């Protein structure tokens, strides 16, 4: 029981890290290596609002998410759209987006370092035990989990039940065909990229309640997010969410039952095994 709850809470954290990248990569086709930096930027924003204005990290979402949305939209329009336009095929775009977002991630690290300095940061908020089935868990992790659940539900509903969501899914399945049925692919991609960035930064704000971070830690989150997104099968947000929870449960189970030293190893082993037997990911469809 303790393992299941712990695993689900950790899965919530992973979902916050990965959902944004799924939108950016699955729909907008940008393998965003600056994803972790955007997350850390969200953490810094939450910290700054908390320390400066005593604003709760949960409330700070009201400020962080819209700013991140606009910021990521601008990044897409000015930095990534030219690459999309000039690339002739998906492979070329992948190479270009890896190179340019790698550069953007450096810029993010540099700017955060210039503003906040290089130290470790953390703060204490809602770090009190909360009993779930008579086992104590940190309240801030539960809040973050709820945030992840709400974000996941909203995204899922929006993508599957609304017209604008449908457009995004169409672009995700086949951008050329989507173009033929009068969907503005570039607009839909910009939307997906901006939304993805907003979710990531919001996730960063929530995660900042219980992690210790510094300006250069983003790459760790990027790697985790990449693995979850691939595990889930790239094309569907549902896949990433499920993959996040599978990973959370697996890591917690291994840490509790076998050896905490093997948690990450088990996560990667799971990942490699799944890829070997389902090369298209948990929810991906066979393409060729």
């Amino acid at each position, binding site marked *: 029981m303790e393992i299941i709850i712990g695993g689900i809470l950790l899965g919530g954290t992973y979902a916050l890290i990965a959902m944004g990248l799924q939108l950016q990569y699955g729909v907008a086709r940008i*393998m965003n*290596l600056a994803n972790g930096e955007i997350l850390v930027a969200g953490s810094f924003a939450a910290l700054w609002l908390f320390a400066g204005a005593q604003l709760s990290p949960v409330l700070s979402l009201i400020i962080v998410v819209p700013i991140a949305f606009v910021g990521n939209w601008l990044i897409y329009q000015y*930095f990534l759209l*030219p*690459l999309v336009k*000039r690339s002739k095929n998906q*492979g070329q775009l*992948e*190479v*270009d987006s*890896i*190179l*340019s977002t*790698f*550069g*953007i*991630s*450096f*810029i*993010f*690290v*540099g*700017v955060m*370092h*210039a503003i906040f300095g290089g130290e470790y940061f953390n703060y204490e908020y809602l770090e009190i035990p909360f009993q779930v089935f008579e086992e104590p868990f940190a309240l801030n992790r539960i809040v973050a989990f709820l945030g992840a659940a709400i974000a996941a539900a909203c995204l899922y509903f929006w993508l599957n039940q609304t017209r604008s969501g449908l457009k995004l899914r169409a672009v995700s399945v086949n951008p050329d065909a989507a173009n033929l049925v009068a969907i503005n692919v570039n607009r839909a991609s910009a939307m997906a990229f901006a939304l993805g960035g907003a979710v990531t930064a919001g996730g960063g704000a929530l995660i900042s309640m219980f992690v210790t971070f510094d300006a*250069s830690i983003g*790459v760790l989150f990027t*790697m985790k997010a*990449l*693995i979850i997104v*691939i595990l889930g099968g*790239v094309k569907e947000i549902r896949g990433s969410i499920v993959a996040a929870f599978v990973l959370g449960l697996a890591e917690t189970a291994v840490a509790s039952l076998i*050896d905490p*030293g*093997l948690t*990450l*190893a088990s996560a*990667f*082993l799971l*990942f*490699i095994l799944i*890829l*070997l037997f389902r*090369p*298209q*990911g948990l929810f991906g469809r066979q393409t060729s």
Partner: protein
Amino acid sequence: MTGAEVRNFAVAIVLFALAALIPLTGSGYWLSIGVSIATYMVLSTSWALFSGPTHYISLATGAFYGIGMYVVGLGIEILPYPVLLLIAAVLGAALAALVGLATLRLSGVYFVIFTLGLAELIRQLVNWGQTTQGSSSGLYVLTDISEPMIYWQLLGLGAIVYLLGWWINRSRLGFALRIIGNDEVVAVHSGINTASAKIILFVVSGTVATVTGALLAPRLSYIESSIAFSPMLSFLVVIMALLGGAHRLWGPIIGVVPFMLVWDLVTAKFPNQTTLVLGICFLLIVYAIPHGLAGLVEKYRARARGAF
């Protein structure tokens, strides 16, 4: 051999000979830049041997490199150094063959992330093994191998990589690989064993990366897993190779040299904003040079020819 090939060989030998003279100038600073350049030249070129024709982007360089370092770190007190290099090469080749066999079914982005996951998996297992089985001494590599020696060894390895690359390009294997890169389905239908071709190349590139790690271990003296298995290394290798152009044997090197020089310049001139300025330079490169430096060179060469 054609006339052009003889000329290319001559140019390559002259360049290598000039590069080999750097330690004799006595400037430790240029030597340290030389070691960085030689390291990434070897890694990027061997990476491109596999990834250039097949278009598979591998992020496993760090895994192989780290294994090489650990072989030397663990064995330096027990075995002579050349034996360790050999062990590293064999281990790297074996692992690469294993990975190659396992990942044949994957394509595109799944392969990218698979290799990234693999690097982390190996790092975690090595750490765990060291905690549960290890001695209390830590991994120290205190030898008398000096910086010029490391540099010459790297250059030697680089020469081997180039010869190998040249040989592969003219062999049936290279031809097969180019077809796979263009269209794998066509390759299969024309009777090419795509699997073994890809594995052979992956083994070559993995072995070279492992030996590079082993060669550099004495330079670091103290082996830490976070540094030996750095994911940043894997990314940088890819980025320099792509910057130069992975479709030509000589592509990566013309990416590595300016990249390292600009990198060094930025470090020196913007000590507080190194990362920020590097990021900006990076973006400039991506937008200004879309097909890598090799693409740029070829374009100007084609134009120069057109003018006659």
